[in-house]
């Protein structure tokens, strides 16, 4: 706790928080946004391909995009570390949503790492059809990236706003997924629903 307070009052943190320069706090937020776009965007591209989008794209060469993914990750990890001292006490002791964000990122990154092993490092990625495990990992990664983005944004708001926003987002996701899964002709979800009805 004292360490966090020391961090928050360090000359760097004070400069970062209070300087009017655009290269203080705003600059690191910009880096954090750009890193997010590459990290989550590339993950989404790879996961969508695994789930069957653009199936004529050979999978094996897509492994090269992991370099961009990791670049985005490190830009965000480092900018995140730099942003932390601006409100170290709040982020690490009051903001429970920060831990949800970090947890979601951990699960998403673990999924992307497991995808790399399951899909890309098993010899020829295009030789065999994608396993159910690979598809589950892809869906997991996408879901947890969305959770990471949501919880990251909600760090800026009070508990009340956070809870109502999270609830609204969950409802929205369920509606979108239901429409997406049921609207496609011949979708398995639709067949299952008709069977049950």
């Amino acid at each position, binding site marked *: 706790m004292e360490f966090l307070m020391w961090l928050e009052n360090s000359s760097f943190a004070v400069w970062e928080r209070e300087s*009017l*320069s*655009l290269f203080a706090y*705003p600059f690191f*937020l*910009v880096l954090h*946004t*750009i890193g*997010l*776009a*590459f*990290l*989550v*965007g*590339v*993950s*989404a*591209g790879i996961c*969508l*391909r695994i789930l069957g*989008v*653009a*199936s*004529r*794209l*050979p999978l*094996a*060469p*897509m492994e*090269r*995009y992991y370099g*961009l993914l990791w670049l985005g990750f490190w830009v965000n990890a480092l900018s995140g570390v730099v942003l932390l001292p601006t409100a170290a006490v709040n982020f690490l002791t009051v903001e429970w949503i920060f831990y949800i964000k970090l947890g979601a990122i951990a699960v998403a990154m673990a999924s992307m790492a497991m995808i790399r092993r399951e899909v890309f490092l098993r010899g020829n990625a295009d030789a065999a059809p994608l396993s159910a495990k690979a598809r589950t990992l892809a869906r997991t990664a996408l879901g947890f*990236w*969305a959770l990471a*983005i*949501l919880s*990251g*944004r*909600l760090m*800026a*708001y009070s508990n*009340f*706003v*956070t809870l*109502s*926003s999270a*609830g*609204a*987002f969950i409802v*929205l996701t369920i509606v979108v997924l239901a429409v997406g899964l049921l609207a496609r002709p011949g979708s398995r979800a639709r067949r299952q629903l008709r069977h049950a009805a």
Partner: protein
Amino acid sequence: MEPLVNTLLRWPFVENFVNQHTWAWPVSETLHFIGIALLVGIVAMYDLRVLGFAKGLPLAPFNRLLPWAIFGFVLTLVSGLVFVTGLGANLRGGSPQYDVITTDLWLQLKLLFIFGAGVNALLFYTMGVSRDVETVGPGEDAPLRAKTLAAISFTLWVLVMWMGRLIPWDLPTAFE
């Protein structure tokens, strides 16, 4: 000018909705970021391939992946419209839209760069560059015209994100 901007861009329905539902603005922001990730991430994957990265990929199949980038753009556009039309819920004053667009340099530049990216994409599709690119197979190089447009696209979208994130820090305060 001010009354025109007001009439077109100030939507009481959105303002009231944002005021009454505390989740509306944060959820819009979250959708904006998800849209950014899909749009910029997938477009970056495409642009980088055109520039020679991940050369084992043929370019034609990307046509099935790019619609997801367009979906991302739609997410950012719709959430962006919530921000523009509902701005009065967060800012006081009779014409917040007019005030913000005339004073915030970052917003002005962001819109300019989005327009530039749009023109760039238009050139890509109308000048036949997209057709040339579709014939590029695994291991092959894309033509120079395609690489130029891809580099411009990549740069512009990074600049859009940069400017967009700075919008809350409008110029007058930042450079005092």
